[in-house]
């Protein structure tokens, strides 16, 4: 099953019409499609995307979870990789990491997310 997923990912990127690396804004836009199903809100608005760096053909993303007690970390990483697959040129290298510093706090949520949850 793992090799099928890798094959699919490789094919998607080979067929991808992209020849240039996306911008940081493009990456963040795509990551809006990665949703935390428990709350129904995407990881960017929840403040879980700590860093997006593009240098040459390398894309580096740092993600966090609201708590290390949550087992969903690797799955969210996979969802992020899948979401980005069509956006990247075939020779791009993606490096997505789960980081825990600084610890997540509610002030990292976006305005939309805070409004959604009733913060004034």
């Amino acid at each position, binding site marked *: *099953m*793992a090799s*099928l*997923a890798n094959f*699919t990912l490789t094919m998607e990127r080979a067929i991808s019409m992209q020849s240039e690396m996306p911008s940081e804004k493009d990456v963040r836009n795509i990551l809006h499609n990665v949703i935390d*199903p*428990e*709350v*129904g809100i995407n990881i960017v608005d*929840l403040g879980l995307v700590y860093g997006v760096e593009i240098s040459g053909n390398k894309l580096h993303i740092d993600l966090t979870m*609201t*708590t*290390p*007690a*949550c*087992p*969903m*970390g*690797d*799955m969210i*990483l*996979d969802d992020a990789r899948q979401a980005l697959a069509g956006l990247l040129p075939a020779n791009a290298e993606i490096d997505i990491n*789960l980081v*825990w510093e600084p*610890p997540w*706090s*509610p002030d990292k*949520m976006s305005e939309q*997310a805070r409004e*959604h*949850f*009733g*913060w*004034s």
Partner: protein
Amino acid sequence: MAVRSGDLGVPFRLPLLILGFASLVSGVLAGLARLGWAVPLPSAQLALLHGPLMVCGFLGTVIGLERAVALGYRWAYAGPLFTGLGGVALLLGFPSSAGASAMVLGSAVLFTGTTLIMLRQRELFMVTMVLGAASWLAGNLLWLTGTGVSGVVALWMNFLVLTIAGERLELSRFLPPSPAAKQIFAGILAVLMAGGILSGTGAGIVMYGIGLLGLAVWLLRQDIARRTVKEQGLTRFIAVCLLSGYVWLAIGSVMLLAAGGLAGVAYDAVLHAILIGFVFSMVFGHAPIIFPAVVRVRMPYHWTFYLPLLVLHASLLMRLAGDGLMLPELRSLGGLLNAAALVLFILNTVSSVIRGSRAGKN
């Protein structure tokens, strides 16, 4: 699909889940035998082991596996390995001290792992989960050293109730903070711990019931499920499972307080209102998230997810009516349909995973 370095992948996780599943199947059969149904049992004394198989063998293994996946350390997987094997030892008819010892070891691993996370994230919600794990370990030690299952049920329930409550408190951080709500939660936690430890006494069990009712009301008022129930699809389904579970927790605690303890029919009614109505509603709601996270498959939402939940609640109403009206046949029928709800849940999970893998290939 990569796992973090040092972590164990699906080939190791899936057998642990299967061990837990063996405890679930034999635990349910033992429960049906207790209700008078003529079911085949792997060993004669299994009817006495329904509680340990369900709480320690099944739920303990699943929760232990979740925590190991979250931690990403190999040693953490020893927890669900111990409890999974302990369940198998019980169902095969080995002396129960063998299975009980395995449960002590497995819960000690969970307690250690949860404490490590708490030391990194010193928040009330982590303390709650540590106390839940400690309650399980304490209950297992007491059971190993000769206390009957009925003497440790409050501690085992605290394991499940506090693990769930801790996770819900963590998620409530998405909402504007309410220092009052947090203080009330801490108070409820103290009452639950004291009541759980003193549940052998008349005052203790009443205190325990008050704690459970307090928690149910807190969750109904504070949990993000009040908002997420207005969303669509899977998010709404999870919220419906949560909210209906909280209602069952309230009903169970009110029954406990009305009965003044767990004597007679109250034992079956209160325990199952909480363990089926509350805990299994949580299981149904979180399976579509946790199962994919642990075994790395897709489990797409479908409206039919509601069907096992409906059967679960309807059958529980029937079972409790049988308890309340002193109609043992009604209780037994309700229990049989509880088992049917679990079968439906498993079939639903399998069919969703198949649908997910077909969609992935297209």
